[in-house]
């Protein structure tokens, strides 16, 4: 009976050891899984941050359509030579503001067209101070 009992105990010990080994393996696998999940979460967050950053960069670099820029450049060319560069830049800046505020192509072109239409008035105003000798 003892021999049987001793064999049973050893068998139990072996089984117990295997279970402990298995538990250890499972524990390690669980740790690895947790690490992997955390890595994935970090990757996901980083990807999301990258997507948001890219979207913001795209929005920030959104430029007015070429047609609008050409029209405001034409409006600036109607002005006195010494003022052209300044107003060309100012018109481009405002065109960009309209585009950035969500203004559609049509709104941008309307803005550009209005600058052309009012260019003669602006030209007249810009010539007045020079005639008066006012410092600018």
């Amino acid at each position, binding site marked *: 009976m003892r021999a049987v009992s001793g064999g049973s105990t050893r068998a139990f010990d072996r089984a117990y050891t295997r279970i402990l080994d298995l538990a250890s393996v499972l524990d390690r696998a669980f740790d690895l899984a947790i690490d992997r999940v955390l890595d994935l979460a970090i990757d996901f967050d980083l990807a999301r941050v990258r997507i948001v950053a890219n979207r913001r960069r795209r929005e*920030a670099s959104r430029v007015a359509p070429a047609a609008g820029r050409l029209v405001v450049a034409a409006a600036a060319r109607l002005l006195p030579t010494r003022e052209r560069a300044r*107003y060309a830049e100012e018109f481009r800046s405002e065109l960009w503001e309209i585009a950035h505020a969500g203004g559609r192509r049509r709104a941008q072109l309307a803005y550009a067209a209005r600058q052309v239409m009012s260019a003669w008035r602006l030209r007249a105003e810009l010539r007045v101070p020079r005639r008066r000798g006012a410092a600018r």
Partner: protein
Amino acid sequence: MAGEKRPGPRMTIPVQLVLRTLLAEPTQEMYGLQICAAAGLPSGTIHPILARLQGLGWLESRWEDAVPQEEGRPRRRYYKLTEDGAERARIALAQAATSVTALGLRPRPAGGLA
């Protein structure tokens, strides 16, 4: 020429609207499109008025200091009433025969555009 007072601008309704908008926050600099939106004027009308006021010395303008590459947008041209301009604008508005309010043309609050 020093000390010579040049006559003020013709106080048309758009000029009055622009002056009222600028006088609402005399120390605050505003860019053209912002003034347009606040005054409720179409964009084409603002630059001739601003040029006239600047020619008279009522207004001063400057490019913003920001670097376009850093800001991600073109730099803005900011306008502000001069001290003398603010004073003269107040007087001119008070003397203006046309009452903007009576015509129901009230400037919209500033800040229509970012």
